[in-house]
């Protein structure tokens, strides 16, 4: 953190990356964030591709989607599993809630770009305002996910038949009313891993929000930290776009 007290021009003139230039015309922090995100993209790809792999090794529901019933015999149709919305008990609204969650995350991504843009203009007030909106969006998303998990774990009123003939409600890592147990495991792992990323993103955003509001970043002479956490935050949004398609839509 030696650069905190020097201005950005001074740093650029001297030893950008010690060799006098900055490789790929990007700062060290931003470049490393990009490569970290690339590796993180591999982790998420592996999880989602595992979902495809396991789904392909199970039979699909053979009949019309309208007649769908939960069974251990075939892979469930996701839109028949995720059709509940808070405060609307018993109403079938497939994918409505998860659509709202997607929308919230996209919006918080927009407020994040606006914070980055304000940072370029050294507009502290605007950075603080948009960072706060971003954090609120993230927390709202996490709240929605908590509800989604709670509903999935507790299950529907009718429950589902297990192979031994008993009725089971909801899902855990061993048993699952919606279909093969692996369906629930993949739900927990994929949305859980993503949710943990959202949580870390909110924590990082809070730190930078604090630093921006007390003037640490202004004293430093640039708002690059906002850009770096911004990259991370957009990546979390990007992953959700893929989770939405491959877990909920298809």
């Amino acid at each position, binding site marked *: 953190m030696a650069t905190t007290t020097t201005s950005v021009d001074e740093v650029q003139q001297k030893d950008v990356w010690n060799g006098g230039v900055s490789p790929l015309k990007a700062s060290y922090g931003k470049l490393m964030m990009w490569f970290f995100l690339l590796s993180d993209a591999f982790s998420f790809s592996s999880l989602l591709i595992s979902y495809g792999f396991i789904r392909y090794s199970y039979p699909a529901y053979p009949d019309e989607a309208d007649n769908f019933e939960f069974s251990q015999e075939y892979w469930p149709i996701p839109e028949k599993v995720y059709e509940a919305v808070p405060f609307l008990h018993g109403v079938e609204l497939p994918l409505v809630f998860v659509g709202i969650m997607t929308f919230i995350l996209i919006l918080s991504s927009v407020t994040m*770009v606006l914070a980055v843009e304000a940072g370029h203009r*050294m507009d502290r007030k605007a950075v603080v305002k948009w960072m706060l909106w971003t954090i609120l969006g993230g927390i709202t998303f996490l709240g929605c996910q908590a509800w989604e998990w709670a509903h999935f774990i507790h299950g529907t009123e009718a429950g589902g038949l297990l192979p031994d003939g008993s009725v089971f409600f909801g899902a855990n890592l061993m048993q699952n009313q919606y279909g093969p147990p692996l369906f629930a495991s993949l739900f927990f792992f994929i949305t859980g891993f993503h949710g943990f990323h959202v949580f870390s993103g909110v924590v990082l955003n809070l730190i930078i929000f604090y630093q921006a509001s007390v003037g640490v970043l202004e004293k430093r002479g640039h708002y690059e930290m906002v850009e770096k956490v911004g990259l991370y935050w957009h990546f979390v949004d990007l992953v959700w776009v893929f989770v939405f398609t491959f877990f909920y839509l298809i």
Partner: protein
Amino acid sequence: MGELDETSTVVYQPADKAKIRKLWKIALIMAVITAIEFVFATVLPRGPLLYFTFVALTIVKAFYIVAEFMHLKGEVKTLIWSILIPCVFVIWLVIALLAEGASIFDVRF
């Protein structure tokens, strides 16, 4: 903080309205695509054609996020390619594991 306010010589530039409008426009496009996906999921019959549409729309959204929100478009070419080229491994894994899953299905059922 108070000290900073008195001594600070930081001048902030006024907001570029066109730039901000463009960002909101991209947000609108993404919201519309999500809405279209949602409508397709409830209206159209399930099948390969629908899945293909979903994947295509997802890639459009991904492009907007990476290119515009993450500003990858504005980086140097080498950086763009060093992020994009490694993603062929993902394509390889998709093909390999889906084929593997299909043959496990054949063995089991």
